[in-house]
């Protein structure tokens, strides 16, 4: 009964508890306590995070002659930490008043807690997988668990969940095909056998394997060609479910890529393979896919008018950074990619929770119907501010550290166009996150929102803790970099030498503690200079210069719709919705073929059919 078994057992218990007690009003607190328990068990295993050896589970099965085993190594510990942390934050958020209001509006908070617990259980099983078969089992369970979480909101959520599960099953089938190929090549599905034979695989085999496994995992990760399902599905999930999905659910795809492409097949093999007619190697192609995944979703997010949709599109975009970091295969780049998983999980969850705090109070997430909430919901504003600084990757917060690592490795490797592409992504993020915080919290406070209050404490607590984490890992990135280094070692990537403040390198390293200290010293001097002169006088929002025009409260003069008009004049016509068009072509094609197929069953005259069949059979045999 190893620690790993304890963890999985606890997760199973929490699923059962939520399944049985989903009607109890206190189910939210119960689930949060169970998640806290799981976190505790995880800390007991925290030796893994600092280079400890892998913990094996005592359960080992052999079904149809295939051995199944489970184990936890540094990489899975790192991902499990994020998963349980995000789940704890989401269930705490949903436990208090949010749950009561959700129940009044006809929702079922118990079901939400149950699906959260189920998701965590399935993810732990996936992370603990010891061989390819266990990996696939865990993968399917995770896809179906998040299907439940996405579909529980009913109505529009059904169609998005339907779209998601079709994509996810396509991905799973690709992985199954990959497993079949591996079995055909190596005769077994164990990691060790594949790693042993990976060296001798022919180029064609490596390409097929990496495409099958890569595209399978990429679908869940929302990499470019398969990213259409993610934004809508995450936006339609009820409240904290989105925070959980947005922060960790799509990173399971990254875990898969790390295990199969990086650990088993090894990036070295990918670098060797050159794609004909181009000077790109397969790894460069994957890096370019990641770079484009950064740009396109970010600039789609720029045009969204729904806060949840905007953040969900950013989730897709940020996935590109992680892939870019990991495929760079250098110590700096891969640590940047891995740390970005942790960073993104923290600030994405904080952002989603603060959006849902606003939705809880105002009832809408439409950016054109909000404004000026900073005076009424200051703490939510603070959380969103910390979140957007993290998402945009600006210094004091942790987002900057992981992006710096990725940029630094691109700089050393000498990949200028990728460097510029990812910076374009960052700039796009800065633009769209400012639109988010401006349309929601700044600007004119509407008359109907003047009486709303700050979100209740049960919702505010997880948000504040998350934003604190975002700042602390930004201030002292060494904390997270230790886990990342252990994960790198587990996966076979070169390990990054780092200090508490960041990375010391003679050609220009980074020391965040110094930078943040100097930054706050600068703010201190600025504040000193500011508050030493003259007493400020606060005025009402109507006391504004508008060219001599008298502003009145009933007029909405808050500039929020079509926010970047100038930019859109230049790049507006570049938005061609080409991926939606491609998808609709695929669907209509299958519909056409299906019509042909079912037409076969409408022919009435069986005798004629039989004659044709017989003639065919004889001809085939002859």
């Amino acid at each position: 009964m190893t620690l790993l078994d304890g963890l999985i057992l606890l997760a199973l218990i929490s699923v059962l508890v939520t399944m049985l007690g989903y009607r109890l009003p206190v189910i939210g607190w119960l689930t949060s306590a169970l998640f806290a328990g799981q976190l505790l068990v995880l800390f007991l295993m925290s030796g893994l995070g600092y280079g400890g050896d892998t913990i094996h589970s005592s359960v080992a099965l052999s079904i149809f002659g295939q051995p199944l085993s489970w184990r936890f190594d540094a990489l899975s510990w790192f991902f499990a930490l994020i998963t349980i942390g995000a789940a704890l934050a989401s269930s705490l958020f949903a436990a208090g008043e949010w749950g009561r209001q959700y129940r009044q509006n006809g929702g079922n908070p118990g079901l939400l807690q149950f699906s959260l617990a189920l998701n965590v259980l399935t993810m732990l099983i996936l992370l603990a997988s010891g061989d390819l078969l266990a990996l696939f089992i865990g993968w399917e369970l995770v896809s179906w668990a998040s299907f439940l979480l996405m579909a529980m909101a009913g109505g529009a959520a059904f169609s998005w969940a339907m779209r998601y599960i079709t994509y996810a099953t396509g991905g799973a089938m690709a992985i199954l095909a990959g497993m079949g190929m591996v079995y055909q090549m190596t005769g077994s599905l164990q990691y060790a056998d594949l790693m042993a034979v990976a060296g001798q695989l022919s180029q064609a085999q490596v390409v097929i394997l990496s495409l099958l496994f890569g595209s399978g995992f990429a679908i869940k990760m929302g990499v470019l060609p398969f990213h259409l399902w993610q934004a809508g599905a995450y936006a339609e999930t009820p409240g904290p479910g989105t925070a959980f999905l947005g922060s960790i659910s799509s990173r399971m795809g990254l875990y898969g890529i790390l295990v199969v492409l990086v650990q088993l097949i090894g990036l070295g093999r990918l670098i060797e393979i050159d794609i004909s007619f181009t000077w790109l190697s397969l790894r460069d192609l994957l890096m370019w896919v990641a770079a484009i995944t950064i740009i396109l979703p970010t600039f789609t997010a720029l045009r969204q008018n729904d806060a949840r949709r905007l953040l969900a599109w950013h989730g897709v975009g940020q996935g590109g950074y992680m892939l870019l970091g990991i495929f760079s295969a250098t110590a700096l780049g891969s640590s940047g990619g891995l740390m970005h998983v942790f960073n993104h999980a923290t600030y994405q969850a904080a952002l989603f929770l603060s959006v849902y705090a606003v939705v809880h109070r105002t009832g809408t997430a439409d950016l054109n119907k909000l404004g000026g909430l900073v005076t009424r919901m200051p703490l939510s504003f603070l959380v969103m501010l910390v979140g957007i600084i993290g998402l945009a990757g600006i210094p004091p917060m942790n987002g900057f550290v992981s992006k710096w690592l990725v940029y630094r490795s691109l700089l050393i490797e000498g990949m200028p166009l990728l460097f510029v592409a990812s910076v374009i992504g960052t700039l796009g993020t800065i633009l769209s996150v400012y639109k988010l915080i401006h349309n929601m919290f700044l600007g004119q406070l509407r008359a109907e929102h003047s009486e709303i209050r700050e979100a209740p404490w049960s919702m505010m607590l997880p948000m504040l803790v998350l934003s604190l984490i975002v700042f602390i890992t930004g201030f002292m990135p060494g904390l997270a970099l230790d886990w990342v280094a252990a994960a790198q070692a587990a996966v076979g990537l070169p390990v990054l030498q780092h200090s508490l403040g960041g990375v010391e390198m003679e050609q220009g390293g980074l020391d965040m503690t110094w930078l943040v200290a100097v930054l706050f010293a600068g703010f201190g001097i600025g504040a000193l200079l500011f508050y030493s002169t003259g007493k400020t006088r606060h005025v009402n929002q109507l006391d504004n210069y508008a060219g001599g025009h008298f502003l009145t409260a009933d007029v909405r003069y808050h500039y929020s719709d079509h926010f970047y008009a100038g930019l859109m004049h230049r790049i507006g016509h570049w938005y061609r919705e080409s991926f939606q068009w491609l998808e609709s072509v695929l669907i209509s094609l299958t519909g056409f073929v299906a019509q042909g197929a079912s037409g076969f069953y409408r022919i009435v005259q069986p005798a004629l059919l039989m004659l044709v069949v017989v003639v065919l059979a004889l001809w085939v045999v002859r």
Partner: protein
Amino acid sequence: MMTLITELFLMPLVAFVIGLFMVLMMRKIGARLQRRVGPPFFQPLIDIIKFHSKETQISHGLIHDIGIIMAVGGYIAAETLLPVPGMDGIADKGGIIALTYFLMIPSLGLALGVGQCANPNGSIGISRALTAMLAYDIPFVIVIFGVSWHYGTTNLVEMVNYQQANGWGIVEMPILALAGLFTLQGIMGKQPFEIYVAPAEIATGPMVEMGGKYMGGLFIMQAFQFYTAGVLYTTLFLGGGENWPTFLMKIFIVVSIPIMIAYMFPRYRTEDMLRLMWKWPVIAGLIGLALVMH
């Protein structure tokens, strides 16, 4: 350690003083181009004192104040990353990538402050300012990549030493320097790319609700902005500061070029600015990059 603390305090002060003179130079050049006498010697300083001494300091909320504090404080912190003759500050703790992101903090702070003022002119101005940032940052990033690749380091102090050893950057990377100069126009936010401060159209955009010490803070920020642009360009291409007289002469010349261009041009519309910034400097940058890389 003691010298570092004094450096951390001294560098912003030096930056402020030089920045003031740069603003003065700007207004003098502007006046001379319009065949005017131009403001007296201490005019920028007087303006700032006057702003801070106003009786009324109109504020629209705490975030409006924090915005100005972030703007001024952000630049004060950014100055310590720029090496000047004799003082290196914390340039080695964060290289040129950290510096570019540090320069984004003041504009983000200002954007938040202006957002709270709930003035439509302000919001339109900020959306244009961020679009301008998107416009000039792409060629700027290409230039940074080329420079860091050429010197093999992102640490500004190392770059200066490299240039002291074997010649200025502008000699080895002329086209990149040209692209850098083009983006300098955008970074300093001067005339051709200054649509976000269109006085007649959107009442100076972000600065519409800034009175008293708020506007004073922004004047200080402008001084810092000129200084940072000048010193950064000199550090990257003109061999940085080996001694104060030549260093001052270099940064003043570097800053005077965009200013002279500025007073010749009207303001571009946002989409034309995007087209211009994404065409010529990017092409020049890429060509320079190609030359540097091979």
